[in-house]
């Protein structure tokens, strides 16, 4: 079972990333892609209780942003930030168990895959209410500040969330309290079926940072190293007590919003354009140019991932569902019967 371990060292700029690290980024993105594909197969076979929001095309954001976070840092994923899970160390088996909702799921199946939290790994469960994690992240960062530790909160959300009151109130509060939080907007140009332009009258959500007197930056979300650098800079700023940053990663989801959605009305040219900007290929080419990875190496990674997926899925499928009684636990610190009604 591979569980990614946090990095101990302090280097941060991309130039300081060794070949091993770059290859690790590549592996994480590829794992995300292959896992999504496998999960969608399961969904097509009606073997998932609900489904999942495929992250294919957006892998660079979660991997780049979380790659060098530390223990004690907290990540608040959006409904699509699957790669935050891998990158912070969730295992393939855990992820399969989570999408199956079986007893091996971190929450015994109480909550869905994309709203699962892994507190041991510094991941909070996201809400199904788009944007709700933004004020929550401010609170996490505020607690970090109160404790005088130099951790950070990294909060992911989609372009759709940027139209919500929570975005406004959350960023305003973060700036006023000067808390160590990095807001990572994954602008994949759509919210569900609707083009981002229907939701925002401006081109760049990053420009909204000005309303909160915080730095805002547009980032190439298909280039994992660009994401890595931008987040590292923002994280360093946050750790130094200089407050929050808004990063907008321009990206694209290669697949539909959700497996059950009947139609994908996005223009084929647009899909084709972005498919050419596959974050995995982009890093792959870079690694090849640097001589860090050749075709054989990629095949080996693919094979290892395939094996891990196979093994984990097998183990997952052998895992029972939690006893129905567990549906009634952990509502309160006490049993629900203690509520007297």
């Amino acid at each position, binding site marked *: 079972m591979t569980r990614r371990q946090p990095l101990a060292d302090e280097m941060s700029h991309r130039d300081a990333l060794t070949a091993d690290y770059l290859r690790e980024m590549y592996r994480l993105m590829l794992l995300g892609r292959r896992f999504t594909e496998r999960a969608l197969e399961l969904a097509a076979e009606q073997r998932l*209780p*609900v489904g999942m929001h495929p992250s294919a095309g957006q892998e660079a954001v979660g991997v780049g942003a979380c790659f060098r976070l530390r223990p004690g840092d907290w990540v608040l994923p959006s409904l699509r930030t699957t790669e935050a899970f891998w990158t912070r160390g969730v295992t393939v088996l855990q992820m399969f168990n989570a999408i*199956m*909702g*079986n007893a091996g*799921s971190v929450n*015994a*199946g*109480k*909550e*869905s895959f994309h*709203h699962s939290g892994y507190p041991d790994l510094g991941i909070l469960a996201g*809400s*199904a*209410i*788009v*944007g709700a994690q933004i004020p929550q992240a401010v609170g996490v960062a505020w607690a970090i500040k109160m404790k005088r530790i130099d951790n950070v909160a990294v909060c992911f959300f989609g372009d*759709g*969330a940027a*139209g*919500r*009151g929570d975005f406004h109130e959350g960023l305003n509060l973060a700036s006023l309290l000067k808390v160590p939080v990095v807001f990572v907007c994954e602008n994949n140009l759509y*919210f*569900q*079926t*609707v083009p981002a332009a*229907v*939701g*925002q009258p401006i081109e760049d959500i990053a420009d909204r940072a000005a309303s909160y007197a915080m730095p805002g930056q547009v980032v190439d979300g298909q280039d994992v190293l660009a994401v890595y650098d931008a987040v590292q800079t923002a994280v360093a700023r946050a750790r130094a007590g200089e407050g929050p940053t808004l990063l907008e990663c321009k990206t694209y989801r290669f697949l539909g919003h959700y497996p059950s*959605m*009947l*139609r994908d*009305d996005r223009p084929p040219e647009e899909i084709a354009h972005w498919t050419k900007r596959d974050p995995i290929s982009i890093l792959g080419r870079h690694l090849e140019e640097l001589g860090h990875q050749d075709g054989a190496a990629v095949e080996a990674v693919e094979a290892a991932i395939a094996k891990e997926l196979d093994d984990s899925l097998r183990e997952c499928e052998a895992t029972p*569902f*939690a006893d*129905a*009684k*567990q*549906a*009634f636990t952990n*509502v309160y610190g006490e049993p*629900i019967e203690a*509520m007297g*009604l």
Partner: protein
Amino acid sequence: MREIELRAAIREGLAQEMRRDETVCLVGEDIARYGGILGVTEGMLEEFGPERVVDMPISEAGFAGMAVGAALMGLRPVIEMQFTGLLTVAMDPLVNTGAKARYVHDGAMSVPMVVRSPHMMHGNAYMSQALEAWFAHIPGFKVVTPSTPADAKGLIVASIRDPDPVLFVEHEDLYATIGPVPEELFTAPFGEACVRREGVDVTVVAWLAAVPAADAAAGELAAQGISVEVIDPRTLVPFDSEAVLRSVRKTGRLVIVHEAVRRGGFGGEIAAMVAGSDVVSKLKAPIERVANPGVSVPHAKHLNRAVLPDKDDVIAAVKRTLGS
């Protein structure tokens, strides 16, 4: 009579009323281009155009408030919340700006808007909430809970024509229910319960997806010689108290079934209404409530099933009232 799906019945009601009354417009996320995540507003954009069928950003609070403003100006907006749990982000515009406008203007203004809110009970703790009791608690709001295609059509039209804000609750599990629905434009009345099945031993009051569960239970119990009367109130506000009292006066036994959490659910209000009437002295058994026993709705299928009430839970409750 022609039979159609409940989903299509709502759509037909909306469309026919929109043809009749050009002040009716649809507002919500993914409702125009895509036709609604659950397909209810399919084809509306094509027929009524982008002025009357408007895709919204993710701003439920904002567009609910906007709908209130538009309704005050005489439009009849029908807004879609993608799932009932989303009502939590729009409570202020709905229950304050919306529900109180008539009162604070002492009748000089009104807010004829409809909030379509689908219960999606097999999602997760956030989405899968049944919050009708919150709205029933708010003076100024009406709450409509159809369970058949014909009622869904008649009540969506009545909701649009109603001069006050209406929470129109839909249910994902009922969209595919097929039933006879008149082709012409018609309204179903508010505040008139429907006796889905007559019986003499036990009264069961149920709404939304609890109606088929209650009905299935009643069928099974009939085979065992137990005669159950199933009452579907169809609207919770206004509520047809008389229908329930009449039935309980006859049966002396009452079971209330809903998917919402039991504590604070609208079932308590119905039980209290009966306990607050002279019928209380006719009760032969304590009033039973079959509902979510008090947990967030879990995701995984088997856990989800354990929390939501089903036919077997209804059967067990009916038998408890019979002391068996």
